[in-house]
């Protein structure tokens, strides 16, 4: 009799969903990668064009902050927009009905986001270093720093995507978060250039601490409070994961 097979192990489900996501996005991933490169390298080069001469400290913040934006944007923008489109077109329920553990599907999407973001991160760094003649002192901590930053961006995106059921609201929220990250967070600029109250708020928001842990692994002597930043980012990742678990487990 058909229909009695178990859907396989968690690992099986994870790899099947990685294959599914890559196939599903194959028409768009090259565009998404290009957008990320334009975002990162564009920011690094654009500021140089605007001001002509950029002080070394500002250049360091700019060049080490732009890749952080790459790592966050992949998860924070693309997933809510994809899910919003699925909800609008009615295909969300088909995907939710597949016999795949939610954690396997989330990790599969994290893998896709990472693979999409990392080439942009590399190109952004290379472009910035070449433009501003910087010497990076990359440590092995760059691996956990970038993995955790991308993971937190993905989990924030999943929390918005699945926690906010109105597609337009989800898209607006994710776009707002990107604006907050770009304009009101110490990602590509030092925190002391922000108003005091905004700098204080940013100590508890995820974006500044994400930039701190990545920057701390790329250049020495610039980032401070790195262990605390790891704690803040990890807390945001854990909190977002809880929201995702609740949103996907909660049935109306």
């Amino acid at each position, binding site marked *: *009799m*058909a*229909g*009695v*097979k*178990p*859907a*396989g192990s968690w690992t*099986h*489900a994870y790899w*099947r*969903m990685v*294959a*599914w996501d890559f*196939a*599903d*996005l*194959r*028409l*768009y991933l090259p565009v998404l990668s290009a957008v990320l490169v334009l975002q990162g390298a564009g920011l690094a080069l654009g500021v140089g064009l605007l001001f002509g001469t950029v002080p070394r400290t500002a250049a360091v913040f700019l060049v080490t902050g732009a890749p952080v934006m790459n790592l966050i944007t992949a998860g924070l923008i693309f997933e809510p927009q994809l899910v919003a489109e*699925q909800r609008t*077109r*009615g*295909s969300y*329920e*088909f*995907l*939710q*009905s*597949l*016999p*795949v*553990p939610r954690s396997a599907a989330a990790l599969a999407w994290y893998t896709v986001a990472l693979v999409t973001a990392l080439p942009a991160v590399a190109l952004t760094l290379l472009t910035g270093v070449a433009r501003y003649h910087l010497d990076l002192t990359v440590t092995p901590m760059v691996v956990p720093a970038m993995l955790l930053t991308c993971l937190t961006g993905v989990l924030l995106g999943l929390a918005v995507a699945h926690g906010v059921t109105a597609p337009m609201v989800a898209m607006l929220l994710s776009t707002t978060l990107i604006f907050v990250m770009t304009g009101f967070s110490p990602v590509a600029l030092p925190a002391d250039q922000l108003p005091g109250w905004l700098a204080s708020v940013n100590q508890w928001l995820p974006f500044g601490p994400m930039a701190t842990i990545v920057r701390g692994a790329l250049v020495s002597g610039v980032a401070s409070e790195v262990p605390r930043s790891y704690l803040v980012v990890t807390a945001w990742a854990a909190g977002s994961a809880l929201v995702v678990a609740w949103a996907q487990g909660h*049935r*109306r």
Partner: protein
Amino acid sequence: MDGEGLFRADSVTKVYPNGIRANDGISLHVAPGEVYGLLGPNGAGKTTLVKQVIGLLKPTSGRITLGSRDLVADPAAARQLCSYLPQAQVPIDSFRAREAIVLCGRVRGGGRVEVERQADELVEALDLGQWRDKRGIGLSGGVKRLVGFAMVTVCPGKLVILDEPTNDVDPLRRRLLWEQVRRLGDRGVAVLLVTHNVLEAEKAVDRLAVIDDGRLIAEGTPSAMKAHDRGHLRLQLMIAPGRDAPALPPFAQRSNLVGRNLMTVIAQQDAAIGISWAEEVIAGGAAEEYALSATSLEDAYIELTGHNSGNGGDADPGDIGG
């Protein structure tokens, strides 16, 4: 009745937070190998019921089980045991048709060789060969629907839920799809078929239920549902454009108007005078043609619900007598 693979809904009620009672105490069962139709007009509560089966919604009260598994308490088991083709198109824009079928079978836990063999069989059986390696973005709605059907049946769960599977599908391939639905039953899969297309359901299902306004109002085999109309015929008139429907003769037991299509039910012994009446109407220019045929499940359905099925007409049904 009980046993492994038996699907059962017991007194399922769903009341949304806004107070709308979408399902009201629905009880039904589907045995392994059985094709069970869920009929009803738009908004009757059919899709709400299947979303509760697959774990996308939670019943306000009632039980939903498949064999010994409680699908309400364990939605992960529901996803594992049930395959679901929703009313909306499956998201396959970037996929090639066969690739989507194979990948879905693999996601459902099928082995590569077996899934590929089944996928090739389905592509052939549904006459999808010319689109086999075409991307979804370039496929018509009907072909996408067939690919979606193949995706959910290539490695089926114990219960396959098909929500309006023939939407947009051309008549020839509809027949092929219904053959595959029957084949699922032959393989021991329970099939829950949601449709408002009564004529098609009549040929495809073993048993069916009619849902209206959230309640199950009739259940049985297609023959049993039609038993009420035994000894009756359907007399159908195509009203001429711009003309009003004619006054009904006294022997018309009930009637219904969809667009320009006037359907009446008459007793068998009134066939001769019915034909005479129809020819008079045509001669008077009020109608263009008529047809006399056996009553169908649709006639029983109309009587039960007061609604027409989705088989024809472009206007809201209007009951004009009976």
